[in-house]
């Protein structure tokens, strides 16, 4: 059995005097889509920011591909090189950089110019609207287009593990379907995904496994279809 791509053990993190994550543990195996669902303020975004090194872990372990990011104090700017990229909540597009420059920023840690060019072409094939708008400022795109750009930008790092924070937030239903199709397709191509969503139903439908996060603690974890059919989950997160 190969080791998991990401193994988080007893993670503690927070802001100022407040701890947000309490002994949080989770795992992403190679080739998996893992969903993390939970209410507002449960600590989903903090978890992802901690994995990306933007929020410092106060305790526990984050082992990515065999390397402990917490013990080795790996700074945020080196985590991308280790194979972890994130499309953050609220997209965080560089609004005054062009679409093309946004994609180039995603490949900031790479030095293989030809490979980067090829990957920009791949992004344009995946999201044709980005090709049309490549010279426009990122801030001029619609919300759905910005979400596509944020995902494409994260993929430019050629990550082994892609973190997606609320990719469906504020988008029209048909765009959401399109985004989730892309997530499935990426996974088929070998990218492992950790998906954070308030749209629990959509997330659990594409995921292999799921975690439920409540006030900084994992309260349930199981195969995604089991969670989808659990009456407690259905009542609390699926609006039934």
């Amino acid at each position, binding site marked *: 059995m190969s080791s998991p791509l990401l193994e988080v053990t007893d993670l503690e993190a927070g802001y100022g005097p407040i701890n947000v994550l309490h002994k949080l543990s989770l795992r992403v195996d190679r080739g998996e889509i893992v969903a993390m669902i939970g209410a507002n303020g449960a600590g989903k975004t903090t978890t992802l920011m901690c994995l*990306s090194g933007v929020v410092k872990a106060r305790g526990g372990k984050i082992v990515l591909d065999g390397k402990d990011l917490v013990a080795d104090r790996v700074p*945020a700017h080196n985590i991308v090189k280790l194979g972890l990229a994130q499309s953050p909540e609220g997209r965080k597009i560089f*609004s005054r*950089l062009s679409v093309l420059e946004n994609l180039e920023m995603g490949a*900031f840690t790479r030095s293989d110019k030809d490979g980067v060019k090829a990957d920009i072409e791949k992004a344009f094939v995946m999201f044709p609207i980005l090709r049309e708008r490549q010279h426009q*400022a990122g801030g001029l795109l619609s919300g759905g287009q910005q979400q596509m750009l944020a995902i494409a930008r994260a993929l430019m790092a050629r990550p082994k593990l892609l973190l997606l924070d609320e990719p469906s937030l504020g988008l029209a239903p048909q765009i959401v379907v399109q985004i989730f199709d892309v997530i499935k397709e990426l996974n088929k191509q070998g990218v492992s995904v950790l998906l954070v969503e308030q749209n629990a139903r959509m997330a659990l439908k594409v995921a292999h496994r799921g975690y439920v996060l409540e006030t900084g603690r994992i309260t349930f974890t199981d195969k995604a279809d089991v969670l989808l059919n659990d009456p407690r989950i259905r009542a609390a997160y699926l609006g039934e």
Partner: protein
Amino acid sequence: MPELFAQTDVAGFEQYLLLGLVVGSLYALIALGYTMVYGIIELINFAHGDLFMLGTFLALSLATWVGVETVTGQGNAAIAATVLVMLVVTPLACASLNILTDRVVYKPLRNSPKLTVIVSAIGVSFIFMNLGLFWKGATPVRFPDLIPDNNLIAGTGLAFTWKDLMVVGVTVPAMIALTLFVKFTPLGKAMRATAQNPTAAQLMGINVDRVIAATFGIGGALAGVASVVYGLYIKSVDYQIGFQNGLYAFTAAVLGGIGNIPGAVLGGIVIGVVGELSKAYLGAKWSEATIFAILIVILLFRPAGLLGARVREKV
């Protein structure tokens, strides 16, 4: 005719305009240091003008050490070499001092309230000013007059000397180089990305601390270039020039839209031209009042500055 318009003649107007452009490009060079640092960490670096002042002092000392203090009795080669030494050493020293200041003073305060950092910058400004006072004393010091004053366009009724040419010949290429750097190099793009969204920049694998240090370095180097040009042009320096020129340059940055690089250049030139024209037609005592009145009027109608219009962020 009232005395107010005593100097109004056509050639006069063109002359003051030309002078305004020359002085304005100097302000622009200093303004870039304010605007770049603000753009990236939202700090109004009040010590920037005083860094410029220390630059003029260093350039002055360099001329003394090299032994070329006056244009008379020197070969052109010796003068050119002296100016070149000034233009290389001073920007490097100013860049290093600016990076060091950030490392020692501002970086530990990166997550503190903005006001804390600004007050620290005012403190650094006083420290620099007093260093200057200690270094060269309280009275103005003569700066070597190395660039000749011959009129290059004699016969047109206008004056444009070697000195004017030197200002334009140094500041314009510096600004063009900066623009190309920021637009096309990976570090330049990383600077723009960090300015627009530091968190996202970290998520791209950009070393934000390195980008901030580079910004302080480039801003400091431009102040160093400006200090050499200023010394050679004005020929007199003292420990207070940082405050006045810094204030004008900061105003230029705000006028153009703080955080915006072309805005700082435009703001500098507007302030240079307005300052010279008001000096000529309203009297020197009115030039500051005119500059700040125009700043107020422009900010009333364009609060983000002339070029500071932001792309609306979609949520």
